[in-house]
């Protein structure tokens, strides 16, 4: 092997370690930690009780202070490992604390109160997953409704996107009509007009149509994606025109050609666009933030942002709900990541 291939192709375990090999593995492992670490820390934290979340330094595992039910006390008492004056240690339950002195009892002999300086005791801790972080928001807050809103927006927007984009792409790839390049130009022009540029008038248009504070107001402006039209058109151009001629000779109407020939043959590109659309719509933030002001219409993203904006953030619920919001995207990542990466690499699309 020559020096060039050594540089570019050397594997780990080749002849010795070039500095680039060291750097490669530094970058890969560092990248792994950087990219997944924060998300893993989020999931990990989401299982901690509020007390454990407030702790510094943080622990890796979710600990809670162990408690025991002691005769004569209604609520469970927290357990501590106490170093007694004679040097021996014993597990005692705290009855009450006054200043630096805690009144404690031995669970075995509940009648006897022992006074302990809090410096001489350590809490007995056990691992416990605070599942309540996940259950509670669905029960006492409206998270189920937010989830339903998000699913509705994502599914509807994706279906309409696939339909309108594929129809437009069909027209633009398989028909010769006057003004076709003009239409293409308009679509390219819309690439230049991101949402933030037309925020105010778009909102007034939506309001004029009675769609403000409506999930349809969130859905409709998003469905005519130029990216989708371009991607599908590019794919449809590879379908031979003779197939369409053959279908015309076979007495198929243009509509039939669209849904019986073109759509099935475009399935791979449609699948990629569907995945993209699901991720886009699930993650949408600014536009729903503007359109939806009534709490019962919030999507998950808006709800999370609202709860995160409160002065007294309940991090234990917020973290758990962030994990819930992440789940669909993580599923897409685990199962369909390859479709997306090849889609982006192939089309170089945005």
């Amino acid at each position, binding site marked *: 092997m020559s*020096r060039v291939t050594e540089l570019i192709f050397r594997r780990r375990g080749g002849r010795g370690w070039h500095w680039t090999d060291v750097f490669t593995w530094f970058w890969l492992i560092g990248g792994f930690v950087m990219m997944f670490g924060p*998300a893993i820390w989020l999931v990990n934290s989401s299982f901690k009780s509020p007390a454990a979340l407030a702790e510094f330094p943080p622990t890796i595992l979710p600990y809670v202070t162990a408690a025991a039910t002691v005769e004569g006390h209604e609520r469970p008492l927290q357990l501590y490992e106490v170093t007694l004056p004679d040097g021996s240690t014993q597990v005692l339950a705290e009855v009450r604390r006054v200043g630096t002195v805690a009144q404690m009892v031995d669970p075995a002999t509940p009648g006897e109160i022992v006074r302990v300086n809090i410096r001489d005791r350590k809490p007995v801790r056990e691992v416990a997953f605070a599942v309540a972080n996940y259950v509670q928001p669905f029960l006492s807050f409206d998270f189920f409704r937010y989830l339903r809103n998000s699913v509705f927006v994502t599914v509807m927007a994706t279906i309409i996107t696939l339909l309108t984009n594929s129809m437009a792409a069909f*027209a633009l790839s398989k028909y010769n009509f006057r003004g076709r390049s003009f239409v293409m130009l308009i679509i390219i022009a819309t690439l230049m007009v991101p949402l933030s540029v037309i925020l105010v008038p778009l909102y007034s248009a939506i309001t004029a149509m009675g769609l403000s504070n409506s999930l349809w107001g969130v859905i409709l402006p998003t469905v005519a994606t130029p990216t989708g039209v371009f991607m599908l058109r590019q794919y449809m151009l590879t379908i031979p025109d003779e197939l369409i001629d053959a279908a015309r000779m076979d007495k198929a109407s243009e509509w039939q050609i669209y*849904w019986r020939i073109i759509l099935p043959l475009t399935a791979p590109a449609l699948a990629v666009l569907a995945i993209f659309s699901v991720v886009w719509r699930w993650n949408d933030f600014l536009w729903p933030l503007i359109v939806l002001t009534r709490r019962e219409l919030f999507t998950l993203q808006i709800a999370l942002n609202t709860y995160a904006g409160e002065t007294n953030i309940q991090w234990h619920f917020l973290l758990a709900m962030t994990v819930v919001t992440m789940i669909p995207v993580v599923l897409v990542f685990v199962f369909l990541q390859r479709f997306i990466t090849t889609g982006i690499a192939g089309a170089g699309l945005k």
Partner: protein
Amino acid sequence: MTVSSPRRVLSGTGAILMAPVALVARLLDPPLSALQRVGGTNGMAAFFLLPNMAVFGIFVLLPLVINIIYSMTGGTALFLADRTFVGAAQYQRLFDCRSYVDPKSCTEDLFWTAVWNTAGFVVVQVVFMVVVALVTALVLNRDLRARSFWRAVFFFPVLLSPVVVGLIWRWILQRQGLLNFGLYELGLTPVNWLVERNWAFAAAVGVSIWAHVGFYALILLAGLQAIPKDLYEAAEMDGTRPARVFWRITLPLLAPNLLVVLVLVLIRAVQIFDEVYVLTGGGPGTATLYLTQYIYEVGFASFLRNPGLASAASILMGAVLIVLTLFQLGIARRNEMRGKR
């Protein structure tokens, strides 16, 4: 990561989803065939274009035109008909400054704060983003085992929503967060990341790079893999030094992709909003207040609501973006032509 099973899942769900769709399509055929008889084969193109172009027209083109008129009106009324015409007053207000570099000297000091913040963000973020994406792509382009796994690793955050990204990092960067714990363990002084101006800026840049770098690395990786291997073999036959191979072969051949990535990053950086808004809310003070947030707040959120002013600011931002996009399309076209030749 297996690919076959999700494909099967996809086709399975596809079949179930298609049943009602097929029924609707069948029911649509008679009226549409009648339409075809009236309008002719080519006339059907108009029908297929209609839904998409209607949505484009109503939700993109129309607002775009309205926006220009809107920016010349004043007051707080939402509908154009209820607004008073003020001519260029909103623009005059935006540009009313003793010195443009000093926002405090401007009537609309928040606008100029946002402009200069955005400019700073764009410059720093674009440089770091392109460098990190390029290094990642070069690393991924080496003959790695399980390359698709490593590629996926860097791509993961791209899929996360900005809200999730913002919250993940708020949790890590908070006063008692993981990062400060790390510093504490190393014996360093903990930093109040999101409360100190410069650190908040660094966090905004870092988090936005974290969230998007995988996407750009992917584009650059595709570019690297499109470089013919025989060029490297030829260079090897000529005994070219590795560094020279990088500077004289890899980089020039990657240049078109690099340029596309650069402009894409620029366009996105100018519009930065979502994840930074969730992360810092524009704070501390106005340290991470960027243009889109300014437009959003003046247009909708703040008690000083002035939609016409927001509209004027958005048109100025739009002008910058149009220039950048035209540049991008120009590059894309040139690359395409080069590909054909």
